[in-house]
């Protein structure tokens, strides 16, 4: 079970610090865990681990296609490889390797893509994965998760290890906002409701979760009660919760740090279109490329701020029938 913090505050540590700690712990507990990277060990905080455990950590050099294939081969022998590179290279550069060598072959590879969406900030458009979820969604049997804060990350990494199959784990390296109390546990494929409300449901992932909570506070001042649900598993999407939310609140807004095409918004829209009539709107990159900038600039440029979410909520509620 999970518990939500009463007040949003910045985490004390970066996500990558927790990532490195949990990989270390899992590898100590389970010899099958192998860590692989493409020359970004220092960037993700794994350089120390690599030096201390050269038998269990493989720096492949800058060759992402080979890393994914080698990980697939390792998993065929019974190991559980966790691969890491930036989200752009973890998906679009190796789409065919993930598809054929890992997923089609039915193997057990955990793919970490770091710096999701605008969190790539100063690396700019070439390094800003706004399509990674979309690409992975098209591959059958791949589970896609985006941990929201350090507490969720630690839990999801362990659950990914213990769940056979290909995972794409979208991971910010930086400090997140702390949403969940320490020790919280989550169910993959099940949304975590973090705020109650009767007028609209906001489904959010990643950095958009705290923006959604801020939006709900803004809306409360205007008399609108917004529920917020953290849809941290994008595939398989939690259909039941989406349908229930549509029936209970009658309006849906999605908020994601990704192209609005084929990400969380599309997944939710597909569920609604086939099951229940409900107005919805998608917050996210409006089918555009990334660019350089700091987080505040990029959130505004992409329309991912709390104010943007609140405006979308009001437009969506206005479209309710009757």
């Amino acid at each position, binding site marked *: 079970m999970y518990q939500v913090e009463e007040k949003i505050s910045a985490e004390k540590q970066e996500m990558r610090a927790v990532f490195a700690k949990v990989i270390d712990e899992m590898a100590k507990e389970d010899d099958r865990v192998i860590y692989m990277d493409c020359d970004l060990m220092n960037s993700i905080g794994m350089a120390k681990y690599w030096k201390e455990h050269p038998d269990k950590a*493989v720096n492949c050099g800058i060759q992402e*296609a080979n890393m994914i294939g080698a990980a697939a*081969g*390792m*998993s065929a022998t019974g190991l559980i490889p966790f691969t890491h590179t930036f989200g752009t290279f973890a998906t679009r550069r190796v789409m065919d*390797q993930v598809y*054929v*060598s890992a997923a089609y072959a039915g193997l057990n590879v955990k793919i970490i893509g770091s710096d999701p969406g605008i969190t790539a900030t100063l690396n700019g458009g070439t390094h800003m994965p706004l399509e990674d979820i979309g690409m992975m969604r098209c591959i059958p049997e791949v589970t896609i998760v985006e941990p929201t804060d350090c507490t969720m990350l630690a839990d999801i990494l362990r659950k990914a290890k213990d769940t056979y199959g290909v995972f794409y784990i979208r991971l910010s390296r930086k400090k997140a906002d702390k949403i969940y109390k320490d020790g919280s546990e989550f169910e993959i494929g099940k949304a975590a409701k973090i705020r109650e409300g009767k007028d609209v449901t906001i489904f959010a992932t990643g950095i958009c979760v705290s923006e959604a909570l801020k939006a709900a506070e803004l809306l409360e001042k205007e008399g609108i009660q917004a529920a917020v649900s953290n849809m941290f598993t994008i595939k398989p999407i939690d259909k039941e919760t989406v349908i229930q939310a549509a029936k209970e609140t009658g309006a849906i807004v999605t908020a994601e740090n990704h192209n609005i095409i084929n990400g969380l918004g599309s997944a939710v829209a597909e569920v609604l279109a086939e099951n229940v009539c409900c107005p919805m709107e998608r917050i996210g990159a409006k089918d555009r490329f990334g660019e350089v900038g700091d987080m505040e600039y990029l959130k505004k440029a992409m329309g991912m701020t709390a104010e943007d979410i609140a405006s979308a909520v009001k437009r969506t509620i206005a479209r309710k029938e009757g």
Partner: protein
Amino acid sequence: MNAKELNIFAAQIRRAALRAIKKVGAGHVGGSMSMAELMAVLYGDVMKIDPANPKMEDRDWLIVSKGHCGPAVYGALALKGYFDVEELDTVNRGGTRLPSHCDMKRTPGIDMSTGSLGQGMSTAIGAAWGSRYQKRDNYIYLVLGDGESEEGQVWEGALFAAQQKLDHLIAFIDFNKKQLDGFLTDICDLGDIRKKFEDFGWDAKEVDGHDVEALEKAIEDAKKVQGRPHMIVMNTIKGKDCTFAEDVLYNHHMSFNQEDYEAAIAALDEKIDRIKAGEV
């Protein structure tokens, strides 16, 4: 098996591969024929395998990265008893366990799914790394196509396997000099492919890929070299010993009729008789 028996087995594998393709009437004939001696040597003599227990933990693995040549592998697997020879008639028909490209989820004895060229290089590397990490007493055998070796992923893997000193990885290139659209030299020449692998840090040698004794010796010699992955460049003929394919320029994927098939089988049967009589 001795050399005579291996040559007979190779001819039988060609027969079985043609039977596998025959029901649909079209398939990857050229590359299936050129690797028949290698399949005979690996399955007939070299590999530690148990057809009754295809997933045996300490088995040797075979990853056929030129996955379109599934029919040659299926021929060998059927003759070894992984499944009935009759099942070869289901190749590429709806619901089959024997699709044109190798599929580890469907076929007993297939160690890795392949078909997108270049990828078997990396998966074989991973299998060799994982086997060594788990202290398994086995070898990972890998077959690459020559056209396939135009893929960048092959060369990523070449660097990585040498860096990791994967000396239980024994790879072969089926150097039949042709790809789908013609000769490699006219399309994307590999140059001295043996030398290239040597320069990448591999133990590399070149043999006649239709000489079963030379193949066996090359594998034995490879096992004596420690600390480096092994590349055995097999000089082969695309379409070898298939009467309707060997002398045809575009023999990568071919359709053929009953008459072609019967003539090819008769020629293979005649070759088997000559091997038995000691004439070949």
